[in-house]
């Protein structure tokens, strides 16, 4: 790959200033574009912080763990939104991880060869459906189905689990359809293609020779997977999950439709709640320029940015590690 740059070093210098200037401009333009990528990331971070500074100054660092969101009395805190964001993302991961990994194993090992590409594309098309469409489908179609089937069943099945903490009743809330649980399920469907596709790519990086060794010893496909493939690529498989988590944390429109938009701590998984992204999208139109509320929304955005940055950075490092090996 480095042929171009090495060759240019040894090339006889062609005297004309025009030649030098042309090459300089060409590389300069490309370099500037590459710099814009980094500038964008840093600028987003700085702008979100500076626009949200008002909220951090007013409430102090306690903004992060204050359990309040009361626009009437101008009191804001991030705790309900953070809890909602983490809870929905974790539900999504718990559902999408095993299914996504199953799809990856299916597509790499057990699926008939001719079907691999079309089925792989079909699963990836789930990622192409716009978030807003997931929101509408979740609200109008999935939520009513869940509220009459899965939710009552879960309530029945988990009756024996005692409430914890500040009276969190697990699955004992009213099955109204919208809430943390439905938001988690919709998110799970949305991140499924990301987890499935990157897990599949990871599984495909295992050297065939290693697998053939296992088969030569008489192992079954599942034994080769659990004893040879997974130990070889474990880090990258976690990378695929973190990638899905990073997607889930910042998902906005779908969540806004199905989470119920209640800015308080949920008392069960069926309770209406809010996530950082859903609060920002919902309350922005009512936030005046220069108000404390707008600053609080930006502060929420800043927190979301930091969290997603770290999750996505971990994902990329884990996924890259394996690519180098």
């Amino acid at each position: 790959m480095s042929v171009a740059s090495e060759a240019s070093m040894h090339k006889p210098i062609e005297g004309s200033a025009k030649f030098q200037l042309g090459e300089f401009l060409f590389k300069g333009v490309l370099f500037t574009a590459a710099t814009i990528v980094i500038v964008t990331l840093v600028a987003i971070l700085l702008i979100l912080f500076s626009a949200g500074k008002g909220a951090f100054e007013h409430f102090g660092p306690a903004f992060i763990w204050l359990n309040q969101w009361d626009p009437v009395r101008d009191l804001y805190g991030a705790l309900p939104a953070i809890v909602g964001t983490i809870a929905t993302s974790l539900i999504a991961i718990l559902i999408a991880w095993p299914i996504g990994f199953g799809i990856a194993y299916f597509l790499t090992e057990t699926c008939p060869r001719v079907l691999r590409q079309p089925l792989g594309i079909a699963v990836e098309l789930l990622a192409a459906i716009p978030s807003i469409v997931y929101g509408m489908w979740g609200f109008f179609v999935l939520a009513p189905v869940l509220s009459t089937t899965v939710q009552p069943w879960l309530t029945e099945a988990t009756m024996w689990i005692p409430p914890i903490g500040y009276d969190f009743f697990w699955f004992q809330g009213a099955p109204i359809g919208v809430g943390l649980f439905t938001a988690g399920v919709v998110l799970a469907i949305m991140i499924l293609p990301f987890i499935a596709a990157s897990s599949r790519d990871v599984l495909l990086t295992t050297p065939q020779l290693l697998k053939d060794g296992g088969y030569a010893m008489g192992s079954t496909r599942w034994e080769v997977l659990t004893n040879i493939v997974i130990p070889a690529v474990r880090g990258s498989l976690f990378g695929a999950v973190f990638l899905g988590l990073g997607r889930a944390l910042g998902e906005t429109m779908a969540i806004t439709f199905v989470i119920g938009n209640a800015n308080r701590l949920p008392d069960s998984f069926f309770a209406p709640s809010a996530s950082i992204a859903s609060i920002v999208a919902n309350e922005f139109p009512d936030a005046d320029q220069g108000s404390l509320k707008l600053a609080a929304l930006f502060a929420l955005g800043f927190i979301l940015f930091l969290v997603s940055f770290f999750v996505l950075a971990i994902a990329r490092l884990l996924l890259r590690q394996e690519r180098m090996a």
Partner: protein
Amino acid sequence: MSIAALNPANHLRRRIGDFVMAIVCTAAALIGLVFLAWILWTLIQRGTAGLGLHVFTEQMKTPGQGGGLANAIVGSLIQVGIGTLIGAPLGMAVGIYLSEVGHKGKFASLVRFVNDILLSAPSILVGLFIYQIIVVPMRGFSAIAGGIALALLAMPVIARVTEDILKLVPDAYREGSMALGARDSTTVTRVVVPAAFGGILTGILLAVARISGETAPLIFTSFGNFNWSDSIFSGPMASLPIAIYRLASSPYPEWVDLAWAGALIITFGVLALNIASRVSLALATRGRK
């Protein structure tokens, strides 16, 4: 792997275990397909009810007066157009830099890493960012702000695909060009990029598909509008995703029907773009890997 596992006496048990896991994983794939089919079926069923020629020819109107989505569709085309016009050259330049100039250097690795993060970063934050640096100084929502937000979302997609595609161009092409005495800029613009142009174009199509459905960043930038806009530089402009959002959250059944029609249009548009770009990518890279 323990020796006991390979004991022939356990042969049947192990074969059954393997078979069961194969079934379970097939079921996982079926779950994914079922949801895809379920969503598409819902869209066809509910979307066709509100669909008609009026959707494409009339603007949005107050409930009870009918109306369509023409202003939203045109608004989306304008903003996605702006996003592509800015995002495509930028993304291509980044991809070319990573593949042809930066290679595995420290700076290029950093750019690659940051680009991958931007690729999956929450799009709502890009909206907040553009609101603060463009909407506030310009004193109002505008189509150009929406377009720039979409450009920032298109850039990392195009950069990634461009780099991946350029890496598939055989080094012999570059060496041949060098041997003829071509400068680096000539090698890149006349030999390497043309050889990969089909692939780069599909990357741009993928990016267009992605930004066409983006809703969250537009809330803070072009805001949405029930009427036609007369300028791209000032005043809010309608877009299909925002129109769907507002109509679907309304209490009027007529509006919800229109929202479903809009969702049908946008989803099938995006899926068509996606499939088209995948097919052409497969054709463009055939025999290169």
